[in-house]
C-alpha cells in the first residue's frame, strides 16, 4: 500500500485483510457469473449444479466481511477515508453477494431449460453479456482497491451497453414467444436469466459508485446513464 501507514500498524493489517477477503469474494462471484452463462450455453447441468452449491462460499465470505468490518468500527472508530473504506467494502460485499445469488439463479434455470426445446441465439448473447458484466465487476473492484475514480467512472458508463444488449434480447425473446407458444416456457426462463445478468451489471455499477465515494468523498450526483427501453415495449411488432 502506497498510502501513509497508520501509527497503529495493526489497523493497516486489519484493513488489508478485509480488502483481501473482498477481492477473493469478487473473484468467486465473477467466475460464478461467467461459468453459469457458459453452463447455460452448453446445457451442462453438472456444472450448473456445482455453481448452485458454490454460492454458500460466497455467502460465507459476505458474512465474514460484515463481521470483520463491524469489529473494525467497534475497535478503531474509523474516520475520513478509513470510514469511507469500511462503508464502501460493506456495500460492495452486499452487492457481490447479490450477484452471487443472481448467478446461482441462472444456474438453477439451466436445469429445467436442458429438458425443453431451445430458443435459438439467446444463450450466446447471454454469455457475452455475462462476460461484459464480469469485466465490469473486476474493474469496479480494481477501482475500489486502488481508489481510482476515473476507472470507476468509466465502468459506470458501461452499464448502458449491458442495458442495450438486454433490450435487444428482450425484443427477440418476445418475438419468439409471439411466433410459437411452445417457446414461452424457455423464453420466460431465458428472460429471467437475461434480467439477472442485467441486474448484476447494476450491482457492478453500484460498486463503481462506491469506489468513486471512497476516492472523492462524494457519490456521483448525476443521474446514472440508463438505457432500459423495455418499459415502452408493449409489442415488438407495433
Amino acid at each position: 500500500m502506497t498510502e501513509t501507514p497508520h501509527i497503529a500498524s495493526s489497523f493497516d493489517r486489519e484493513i488489508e485483510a478485509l480488502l483481501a477477503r473482498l477481492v477473493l469474494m469478487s473473484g468467486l462471484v465473477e467466475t460464478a457469473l461467467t461459468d453459469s452463462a457458459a453452463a447455460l450455453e452448453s446445457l451442462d447441468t453438472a456444472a450448473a449444479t456445482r455453481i448452485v452449491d458454490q454460492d454458500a462460499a460466497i455467502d460465507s465470505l459476505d458474512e465474514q466481511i460484515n463481521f470483520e468490518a463491524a469489529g473494525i468500527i467497534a475497535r478503531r472508530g474509523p474516520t475520513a477515508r478509513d470510514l469511507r473504506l469500511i462503508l464502501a467494502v460493506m456495500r460492495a460485499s452486499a452487492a457481490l453477494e447479490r450477484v452471487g445469488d443472481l448467478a446461482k439463479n441462472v444456474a438453477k434455470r439451466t436445469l429445467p431449460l436442458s429438458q425443453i426445446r431451445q430458443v435459438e441465439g439467446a444463450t450466446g448473447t447471454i454469455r457475452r453479456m455475462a462476460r461484459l458484466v464480469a469485466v465490469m465487476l473486476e474493474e469496479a473492484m480494481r477501482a475500489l482497491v486502488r481508489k481510482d475514480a476515473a476507472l470507476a467512472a468509466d465502468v459506470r458508463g458501461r452499464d448502458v451497453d449491458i442495458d442495450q444488449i438486454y433490450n435487444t434480447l428482450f425484443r427477440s425473446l418476445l418475438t419468439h414467444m409471439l411466433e410459437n407458444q411452445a417457446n414461452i416456457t424457455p423464453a420466460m426462463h431465458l428472460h429471467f436469466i437475461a434480467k439477472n445478468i442485467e441486474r448484476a451489471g447494476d450491482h457492478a455499477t453500484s460498486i463503481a459508485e462506491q469506489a468513486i465515494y471512497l476516492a472523492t468523498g462524494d457519490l456521483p450526483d448525476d443521474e446514472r446513464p440508463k438505457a432500459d427501453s423495455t418499459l415502452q415495449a408493449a409489442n415488438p411488432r407495433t
Partner: protein
Amino acid sequence: MNAMQTPVIDTATLQPRITAQDVQVYYGSNHALRDVSVDILDRTTTAFIGPSGCGKSTFLRCLNRMNDTVATARVEGRITLDGQDIYDKRVDPVQLRARVGMVFQKPNPFPKSIYDNVAYGPRIHGLTRSRAELDEVVEKSLRRAALWDEVKDRLSAPGTGLSGGQQQRLCIARAVATGPEVLLMDEPCSALDPIATAQVEALIDELREQFSVVIVTHSMQQAARVSQKTAFFHLGNLVEYGDTTQIFTNPGDPRTESYITGRIG
C-alpha cells in the same frame, strides 16, 4: 436527550458570537499561534482538535484572556465578543470571564461547600440582590449541570467530597451560574469515566441550546459526537475549520485527514 445523537442544526443561519481575526500568540520568542481567524457561532458546539502543542488550548485561553495570567504570553490580532474587542483596555478581564466561562481538564472545585462553589461567581459579580435570589441561581445552575437531584440534600457538604464526574458537573454549574454567553471547556472529560463522560456530553448538548460551547478534546469520537463545527490545529496554525460531519467523513486538508485517521503525517 441522547448524547450519541448529533442534533441536526443548520449552522448557516447562526450568528457569530466570537470573531477572531489574525490572532498571533507568542510565549517569549516562541510564536505559538499564527494567523488564526475563525468565527465561534452562537448556540453551537465548536470542537478544537489537534496534537499536543498545536495551539488549540492556547487559542481557547485567548477567548477569555486566560493568557493574561501567563507573564511571557503576548496576544496580537483582534478577538471580539458580540462585536466588542475583548482586548480593549476598557474591558475588565474578570467581567469578561463571567461572560466567557471556563471548565478545566481536572475538576477543580473550591474547598468550599457545594452551595458556595456555585454561589461564588454570582456573589463576586454582584448578580443577585437577596439570599432567595441566590438560592434560585444556585438551584437553576445545578439543574442545568444535571447535578441538582444528586446534591440537593447536601448543599453544605464540601464540593471536594463529590465523585470526579460530579465535581466536573459542579464546575460546570459554577461556570454557568454567572450566565455566560460562551462556555470554554479544556478537555473536560479526560479525567472522567465513560458514564460521567456521557453525562457531561449530554449536558454540553443541552447547554449548547442556550449559548456557545467551545471544547478542546483529544478524543476524536467525542469531537465527532458533541460538536457541530470542528477546528483542526497543527503546529500553531488553524489548518481547517468546517462542519463536523464533513471534517470526519471527508476532510479537505491532507493534514486533517492524517491526524484524524491516526496516520503519521
